[in-house]
């Protein structure tokens, strides 16, 4: 067959219907993602303006729903400026390196249950690769490249500095992120998002949120907020203080791509949280004929909306972290906590006695760690501890003698 060498899936005489279904899923998935982004931007602006007693977008479409579209059109027709010092190829490549991972990650999220069309049982999920959730981690790794290269290729100092800051932050939080995902993978026994959702069942006390004891969820929520560079961890962009972070030199459509991928990531990560910890599309399904397939989708959308709202709520409520605070939270608190919790979960999966043994060991280790942090914080960290102030420094005798010109004896 023609595609035989390309994809093993197509070599065994795969019927055209399945090919068509896959194609359809990709197209619909893309459309859903784009629509979700447009609604997310609108929702964020509307919700945050309500929290600040403002009105928000209202002119375009009902309740200002088309405002995002109007902004997109405006950006599309603006002049596209590429700085003279920029590395032109990388400069053009970077926005796509950020956008593509965002789109691909959306593909692995199970949006609903299973639908039967023309005798084929179709999972409402663009793709269900066996490496599943690892793909998400890999993609977020690639988007770090996008951010880094965007800043580097701009040929300007400030985007460069900002992109270094951004990638440092994203990489730091990836460790805690990965560790809290490991707990989910441990309890599921599979990496596939489909299996992760299925293992959680329909009732809420089977959800990973409860099964894993809330901590991995809390770590994930904080780490992913930092990973997305969203407030309160938006030191990277800090629009009220800095020019604009790594995309300062970007304009027109290329800036729109950054903006788009940022919001797409927000939507996707809300969906991933629901998938990992809240049972995905699981929920009560009333026995209505021909409509049973719709309820998982509704549940999924409702749960995702709650987390999308959470991100907006964080942004409205919390002041921005200082950069050293961001790093301290990531390295000193979240990574040890997620590591310890992962060990405890793993040990409890082996046996109860192992579990309690590890738990006590982790508690002991964390008390040691917190004591060492205390000692570290108590240390004199002022600039004077490194270099004495000018007044404190001893003045060389030769200099003084020269100043006094030998008039006085020292």
């Amino acid at each position, binding site marked *: 067959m023609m595609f035989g060498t390309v994809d093993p899936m197509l070599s065994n005489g795969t019927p055209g219907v399945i090919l068509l279904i896959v194609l359809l899923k990709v197209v619909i998935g893309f459309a859903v993602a784009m629509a979700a982004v447009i609604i997310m931007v609108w929702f964020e602006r509307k*919700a945050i303006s309500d*929290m600040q*007693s403002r009105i928000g977008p209202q002119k375009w479409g009902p309740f200002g729903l088309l405002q995002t579209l109007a902004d997109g059109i405006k950006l599309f027709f603006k002049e596209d400026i590429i700085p003279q010092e920029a590395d032109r190829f990388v400069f053009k490549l970077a926005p796509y390196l950020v956008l593509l991972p965002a789109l691909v990650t959306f593909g692995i999220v199970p949006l609903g249950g299973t639908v039967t069309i023309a005798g084929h049982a179709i999972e409402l999920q663009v793709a269900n690769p066996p490496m599943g959730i690892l793909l998400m981690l890999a993609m977020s790794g690639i988007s770090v490249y996008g951010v880094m290269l965007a800043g580097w290729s701009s040929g300007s100092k400030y985007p460069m500095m900002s992109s270094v800051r951004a990638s440092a932050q994203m990489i730091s939080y990836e460790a805690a992120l990965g560790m809290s995902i490991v707990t989910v993978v441990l309890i599921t026994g599979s990496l596939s998002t489909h299996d992760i959702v299925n293992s959680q069942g329909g009732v809420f006390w089977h959800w990973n949120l409860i099964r894993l004891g809330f901590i991995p969820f809390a770590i994930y929520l904080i780490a992913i907020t930092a990973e997305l560079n969203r407030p309160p961890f938006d030191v990277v962009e800090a629009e009220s203080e800095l020019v604009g972070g790594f995309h300062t030199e970007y304009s027109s459509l290329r800036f729109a791509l950054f903006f788009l991928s940022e919001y797409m990531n927000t939507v996707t990560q809300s969906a991933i949280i629901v998938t990992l910890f809240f049972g995905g599309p699981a929920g009560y399904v009333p026995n209505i004929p021909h409509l049973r397939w719709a309820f998982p989708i509704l549940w999924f959308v409702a749960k995702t909306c709650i987390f999308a709202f959470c991100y907006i709520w964080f942004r409205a409520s919390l002041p921005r972290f200082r950069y050293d605070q961001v790093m301290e939270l990531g390295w000193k608190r979240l990574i040890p906590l997620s590591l310890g919790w992962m060990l405890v979960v793993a040990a409890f999966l082996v046996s109860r006695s192992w579990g309690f043994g590890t738990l006590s060991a982790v508690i002991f280790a964390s008390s040691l760690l917190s004591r060492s942090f205390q000692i570290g914080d108590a240390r004199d960290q002022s600039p004077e501890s490194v270099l004495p102030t000018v007044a404190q420094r001893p003045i060389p005798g030769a200099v003084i003698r020269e100043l006094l010109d030998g008039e006085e004896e020292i």
Partner: protein
Amino acid sequence: MASWTDFFGGFKLTLRHIGRPNVTNSYPEVKRPKQPRQHGRHVLSRYEDGMEKCIGCELCAGVCPVGCIYVRGLDNPADHPVSPGERYGYVYEINYLRCIHCDLCVEACPTQAITESKLFEFSFTNRADAIYTKPQLLVDDNGFPQRLPWEDWREGEAAMTGGWMRATAPAGDASFEGVVQWSGDLGAGVRAPEAGQSGNRDDAATGTKDIRTSFSRHMSTESQLQEDQGLASFLNAFARRGGKKESA
């Protein structure tokens, strides 16, 4: 005393604000009631019999700190006098590219001929339109100010022209507060005195709308009125809304 739950105070505050009315409004369509003593576009008044109040004395032009007023007086024609006095304002021009709306002209006017409405939203597009001449400033035969094409008049903006002046006597003597010392206006009659510092205001008579109510629920608790604090505020807001519906 700070406790760890204070961390969630910010979350609570933002969530609570969702339920509150917005401070901003859709400006060009919806306008907030203006301050009762707002200084805006000038209006030249007429007496109740239709005679012009301006006597062409040029005191307004003299007092104007930016020199935006140009007045020329002329003797009243004997057969059809324009004003009840000896002379009348033959030319009256105000240059709104210069006017700072300080209201000193209103204070200086011996006959309360020049007053200020609450209109400030007039955006002309050329310099000729910026200079308002006497036919544009003078009230029409109903006693209402002319409405020029580029002016955005709303209800109540012309109701109390020079309203601040009627808080006390025109001379500024506080003991004359609430005592009518001004002549009637064409269309409006003798306008009611606005309450000054004594506070016994009659908002219905002066057409004053209280701007405080639209902000009250956003103020800090200390600066709110007693009736706008705590749970009672919701009940009062509900009652106010009901009352408005009846009157409408």
